[in-house]
Every structure is written in structure tokens, then in C-alpha cells.
């Protein structure tokens, strides 16, 4: 069993009249128990060669579970983004420097995570934590 933690910090001194300072730490565990996740894709990078949509993670390739996904758009051009689609539904757009972290159930072969770059030659950094 491995111990992997994810900590998020949201902060702002001027979004509201009161300061925003939120920190949450989660230990990444398997579905419904306290066993640490032991599988991972490793930290990877994908350089796109066009603006086509790619399957980043195939829902059919993983068992139904409490997987976690980390994605980061490494672009430094503010207008460049990746459109993130999950289960054929547009989740959102990851602009330059943006990152996201979310659970993924992979509950069906249609539950793919797909990415579509807004320009050619963009690089997405990704890491999947796998509930094996």
C-alpha cells in the first residue's frame, strides 16, 4: 500500500472582502476503503500535432473504481486551451498553465477522457492514479 496525498490551496486577498485561504488535503485511497492507491500511469506529457480530439484515457481499459486524474496545460500562450471531455460531455477548458484534479469512475467503455487542443503543438501534462 502506498501513501499518496493531494493538497489543494485556493487563495485570494481581493476576490472578496474577506481573505480566501482554503487548504484541503486528501489521501488517495481505493473505493470504499482506506487502502492507498498503488497504480499510476506515471507523470506523462503528450504533444499534440494537430487540433483533433484525442482519447487520453480509455474508459474500457480500467476497472470501475476511484481513479484520480491530474491534467495540466503547459502552454504559456494565454489563448491556448485544451477542451476536456468526459463521457462525451464537455467538462471545461484548460487554458495556459491551468491544472485540474478530479475523480474518474471509468464505469463504462464510453467513459473516455478526451482532450482537444485549440492549436497544434501544445503539450498536456497528465497523471492517472489507478484504483486497481
Amino acid at each position, binding site marked *: 500500500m502506498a501513501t499518496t496525498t493531494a*493538497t489543494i490551496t485556493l487563495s485570494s486577498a481581493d*476576490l472578496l472582502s474577506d481573505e480566501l485561504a482554503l487548504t484541503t488535503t486528501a489521501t488517495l485511497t481505493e473505493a470504499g*476503503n482506506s487502502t492507498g492507491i498503488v497504480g499510476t500511469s506515471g507523470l506523462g506529457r503528450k504533444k499534440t500535432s494537430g487540433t483533433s480530439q484525442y482519447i487520453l484515457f480509455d474508459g474500457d481499459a480500467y476497472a470501475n473504481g476511484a481513479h484520480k486524474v491530474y491534467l495540466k496545460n503547459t502552454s504559456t500562450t*494565454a489563448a491556448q486551451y485544451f477542451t476536456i471531455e*468526459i463521457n462525451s460531455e464537455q467538462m471545461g477548458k484548460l487554458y495556459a498553465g491551468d*491544472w485540474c484534479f*478530479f*475523480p474518474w469512475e471509468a464505469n463504462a467503455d464510453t467513459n473516455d477522457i478526451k482532450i482537444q487542443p485549440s492549436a497544434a503543438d501544445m503539450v498536456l501534462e497528465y497523471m492517472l492514479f489507478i484504483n486497481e
Partner: protein
Amino acid sequence: MATTTAAITLTSADLLTDALSLSATKTLHKAGSTVGLDQTTGMAKAYLTATTNIDIFPTLIEGSMAFAGKSSWVYICNESEDETEYAIITISGNVIGKLYAGDFLWMPWSQSEDGHGNNRHGDIELAPSVDTGMWFTWCCINEGTEYPTAV
């Protein structure tokens, strides 16, 4: 213009042979720009006692023209301490994943109108796994808020 940052640290000494120590920090900007996001729903804290789906941002008009092409970020945390308790998170009725006790998510949200014809638009919904009471916190930091017209 506000300056709001989101940072993540992923660490593990034993997931891999090499230590994992990954950090990323990003200032939240309006879509395609370097102008800071300046609107938020505020942080909500809710105690849910039913397993039915709820729309966690009911005051926002998803799929509206105001949100088209805009940037929104969503934070959700399952505050439960019972490892078996989870919430199913969906977008437009499609499952993203299960958020187990202590887990959080941070994701962009297009709020785009879906193509499923079910009038759910871009709703983000949450369904607790038990009806015995679960605590959650969530917020949205965004631009282009449009509120429903009073009736």
C-alpha cells in the same frame, strides 16, 4: 481585477521507486486572457440527508449566453470521515466520478449546453451515497454570472 490562485501538491514517498513531489500553481484568469476572475458563488457548506441528485449551483443559468466562452472553476469536497461514503458527481447527467470521504475535485466548467436533449444543460449535480447525513463544501469561481429573472 482580483488575483486568485489555485495550487496543488501531489506527494508520495512510496507510490513509485522515485519520490513523487509535483506542484502546480495557477492564477485564475478569464478565458483566453490574463485578467483575473472576479466573481464567485462563495463557499457553500451543506449537510445532505437524501441520496437524490441536487444541482449545486442552482442560481447560475448554465448554458446561458452570458457564460458562453467564459471561464469557471469548481471546487467540491466530501467532508465525510466514513471511508465508505461517497458522492456521485455528474455533469449534464453524465458521471464524472465518485468523490469518497475526504476527497476533493478542482475542475474547469464550460457550462455549455449539452446535446442530450434532457434540459439539464451544464448542470453539475451531486448525489450522496447515504441518507444519514453527509457534509459537503463547494464553490464556483467564475466570470459572466447571469442570474434567473425573478418571477
